[in-house]
Each structure stands twice: as C-alpha cells, then as structure tokens.
C-alpha cells in the first residue's frame, strides 16, 4: 500500500521524535557513527517519507515510487530509522547497526539487502550525479516519479557536486529536487571557516536551479519549500534547509563535535530524557 500522507503537524512531530529516539538508541548500541547530522535532518526525513514521497514500504521496488538518494551516507542512522518507522523492516533490526553481518552498514550498502535503500553511498560528492542519471532516465521515459537527493553542506566543497549541478540544469531536470542539510558545520568546524560556501543561494541560482531556503527543522516550512522548489517542470530545484546539528537534544544542539560521534550508554539515556522534555 502506498504510504499515506501525514498532514497533522503534531503527528509529524511525533514521528520525528520517534526517529530521533531510534537514532540515539541505535548509535549508542553501535558505539560509533554520526549522531549530530542524523538528528539535525530527522525532520526533513519525516516530511519526505511521511508526507511528500510516493512510496510503498511493502513493495520497495515499486517502479513508480519516488526515489530518495542519500548522498551523505554517514547519516545512514536517520535513513534506517525512518525506513524502519515507515515499515520497511522491523524496528528491532535498528539495534544491529554497524555490527558484523548486519544489513545496516555504517554507510548504506545495497548488497546487504536492506529494503528501501536506493543507493550504496558514502564517498561524498557522488549522490547528485547519480540522482541526475536517475532523473534523466525518468524524463527520457516520461515517468511520473521524482528524485530527491539529500546533500550535506560540507559536501558542497566537492567539485563533482558542481559538475552534477551544471548537468541537472543543462538537462532541464524538473523532476529532481535536492535538499542541502545546511547545518553550517563539518568535522573540522564551521563550514565558513573550513572552506567558505556562501553565497550559496546565489551560486545555485547561477547554476540554473530553482532555489528555496527554509528552516529545515520546521515541518511546515520544509513541506512548503519542497512545493516551491518543484514549480518549474523544466528546472531542478534545491532547498537550502537550515538545520541544527543535534536538533532535539538541547545540550548538544549546534555542537559540531557531535558530527562523527556516538553517545555512550549514559549519554544516550540523558539525550533520550532531553528529547522527551523537548517534546513536552
């Protein structure tokens, strides 16, 4: 059955909290992985999988599904948690994250057979090119589905992203929507200090994209920006989604030291409490 669309803001919030809870728990059990980005982008994943995309968890390869390409493979925990909550596989399997023999690899790997994965990825700078290829195929065959590509902001420092950006506009891929997780930080610190990206909006505009900015931790804002980004059928759209790394856990929000860390059991307990408090 095609995933029903959720419009109720409270329900979306509840789903995001569920996803964040799974992210914290699974990373804590894994003992390594990327917590900050996974939490920051949870609201965008909620919107895509529960309100925007046409997909069917019971039939992961349904030909007319919308495709989600996760270019930043390191936030795999949020993808896995979202897929589990959408019903692609049992939530208990999240506890196997990063363990030997698991279908939940540290970075997504399709050969391990996890349903719902559209691409094995993790080496930054590649997902947008693959998204261009898929969108191009869809356009050539006049298919109704769309391609969504999740990019990191630090990832935009990879030159190959801009090769793909040029190609998407050149090929008039209106069926492609990219979302940049603009949390402003990367492993070494603030993006603008490590390698300045701004003016990002103008750059994407100059590359021929429809550019929309939004608060990436606000469901309503994310949903309306996706619509705005898709209004021109001949133009690829990109959403610069301003998010907070570690969103939902007040004590670590915006702290880039949580980019590539997993919480200890003690920290996980504390974060789960903070998450519940934030809910209330």
């Amino acid at each position, binding site marked *: 059955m095609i995933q029903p669309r959720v419009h109720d803001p409270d329900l979306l919030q509840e789903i995001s909290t569920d996803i964040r809870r799974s992210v914290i728990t699974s990373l804590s059990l894994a003992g390594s992985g990327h917590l900050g980005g996974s939490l920051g982008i949870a609201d965008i994943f909620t919107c895509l999988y529960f309100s925007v995309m046409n997909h069917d968890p019971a039939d992961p390869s349904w030909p007319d599904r919308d495709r989600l390409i996760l270019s930043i493979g390191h936030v795999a925990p949020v993808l896995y948690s979202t897929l589990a909550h959408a019903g692609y596989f049992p939530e208990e399997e999240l506890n196997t994250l990063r363990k030997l023999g698991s279908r939940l690899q540290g970075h997504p*790997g*399709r*050969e391990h057979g996890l349903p719902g994965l*559209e*691409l*094995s*990825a*993790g*080496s930054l*700078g*590649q*997902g*947008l*090119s*693959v*998204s*261009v*290829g*898929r*969108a*191009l*195929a*869809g356009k*050539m*065959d006049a298919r109704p589905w769309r391609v969504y590509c999740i990019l990191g902001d630090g990832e935009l420092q990879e*030159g*190959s992203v801009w*090769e*793909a950006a*040029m*190609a998407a506009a*050149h*090929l008039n891929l209106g069926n492609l929507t990219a979302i940049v997780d603009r949390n402003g930080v990367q492993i070494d610190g603030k993006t603008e200090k490590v390698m300045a990206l701004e003016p990002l909006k103008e750059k994407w505009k100059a590359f021929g994209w429809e550019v929309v900015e939004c608060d990436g931790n606000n469901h309503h804002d994310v949903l309306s920006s996706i619509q705005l980004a898709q209004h021109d059928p001949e133009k690829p759209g990109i959403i610069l989604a301003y998010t907070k790394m570690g969103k939902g856990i007040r004590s670590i929000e915006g702290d880039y030291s949580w980019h590539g860390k997993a919480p200890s059991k003690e920290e996980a307990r504390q974060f789960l409490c903070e998450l519940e408090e934030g809910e209330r």
Partner: protein
Amino acid sequence: MSIQYVNLGDKPTRTGFGEGLLASGFRHPEVIALGADITTSVGVNLFAEQLPGQFISLGIAEQNCVGVAAGLALEGKIPVFATYGVFAALRTTDQIRVSVCYNNLHVVIGGAHAGLSVGPDGATHQALEDLAIMRVLPNMTVLSPCDATQTKIATIQAIHHVQGPVYIRFGRAAMPDFTSKHQTFEVGKAQLLHPGNDCAIIATGHLVWEALQAAYLLKDEGIHARVINMHTIKPVDREMIIRAARETGIIVTAEEHQVTGGLGSAVAEVVACEYPVPLKFVGMPDRFGESGEPRELMEKYGLTHRGIIQAVKSILSGI
C-alpha cells in the same frame, strides 16, 4: 594446427568500439552513450549523429559522467561512457569504485587511447595504469581486445553479455586488424592463437600481434612458442594460464601497460599459486611515457616482437 594470421589492414581499435556501440544502439534503445566532449576521438561520434535520442552530452566532467551512468543503470538503461583511459579509469576511480562497483551496476566504461598509442600527446594522456586500477575493483570485468574486429565484438559482448560493471580498453593508432569477424569470443575465455610447447607468450591488446610475429620468428629458430590472447584481464582465464605453465614451463607476458598490476601481475598471481614456472614481463618498466610516434615509443620501451623474443630467449638461456 597452425594458422598464420594476416594483417587485413591497419585499423584503430577505437573504430571497432564505435562500430560495436552503434550496432548495439540501433537494436537496443536502452543503450545510452554519454559524451565527455571528445566523442569523435573515442569513436562515439557516429552513435551521437545517428542516435541523438540515445546520446547525452555531459561535457568535460568525467566524475559526473560516471555518477550519471550509475543513475541510468539503476533505472534499467545500459549506459556506455567512453573517454581517454587516463580519465575514464583514473580521474573517476572513486566514482567507479563506489557508485558503480559497490552498487554492482551494469555500466560500460570505455578507456580510449590506451597504452602508448596516443604517442605525441605524451605521458599525461597515455593510459598505462588503467588495467591495474580497474582490475583491483570488486565486481569489475576488464576487457582488452587485440584488434579492431575483436574490439567491435568485445564491445557488443560488454554491453549485452556481461553482468555488472565492465571496463573495455582500446587504442588510438591504426594497428594490424587480423582476427576473424566470425571468431569465437567469450568473456573470460582466452584465445589460443598459436600452438607451441617450448614457451608461452600471453599477450593482450596491441601486443597480441607482436606476440604472433615473435612466435613466427622463433619458429624459424626451432623454438615453438604458444601464443595466447588474454582479451579478458578480469576474470582472467586461470585454466588457460595453468595449462600454459604446465605444458610449456616458460611464460612471457606482453602488454602496453605498466609491468606492475596489469596482465603480467594477473598471470603471475595464478602461476605463483598454481604452477610456478619462470616468468618474464614485457611492458612499461614503472615509468611514464613521453612524446613520440606510437611505433617509436613501442620500440624504445621494447613493446614489440623483438622485446618479446628477447624475453623468451633470456629465460631459455637461463639469464
């Protein structure tokens, strides 16, 4: 049975690639060729002109080309991306490794101007490392056909009969075209071109013709050299290599590629484990090429029948 192979006229292997691609494209609309600006020099221009709906120009952006190819393959297309081997295999190695090979997608990558055949352009454009790098990637099939006729057949096979990623290498310069268009060509099965039990010459690409010439000259001296065309570098034909080692006791490999990592290494890995015999490698001795006519460069670096004969004799005389 010994066939004397005859040169039916010099022809660049890239022409064979272009012909094979065009033939496939006409019959199969899912075959999509990607262009990285140099379509004419890699033999894709005819395809682009005659099948414009199946040709996508992506400019001088090879990394993106490989990713786009992966995306097309995920949607059931058969993307074929060709550019100079140095760019096709080396500039894009990470994209090929992750987006194509780790996803195990049927993407056909053509490495043009392989070896020294791009001559005067010099070292930057001479692909002498591509076989080594493509060979080490899991899921990858690596083809290195020996002449234009075989390249056409190999291209069609690569497009329609290989599962997963495939790299096919071909050259720029016009070289002897000597195999039959009715030949039996099977990916992973080497061709025994010339019988002999005194030594075995296992060659690939343009060096196969040189290996044959070496065998004919050695025969005049009473040395019967077996010549094997190893057109598939991966999966390498282990059985053919083991048989050659067992029946001849001496193996010389010949390739237009660095001696490290390519055909020689592939053969040595099998021989060392299965049936150790003396080996010599004819190839580039771990150095960059330079400008010069292809023929001059082949002579300079010993990538000729003379170089092969010398290698055979040095083993026979125990040097």
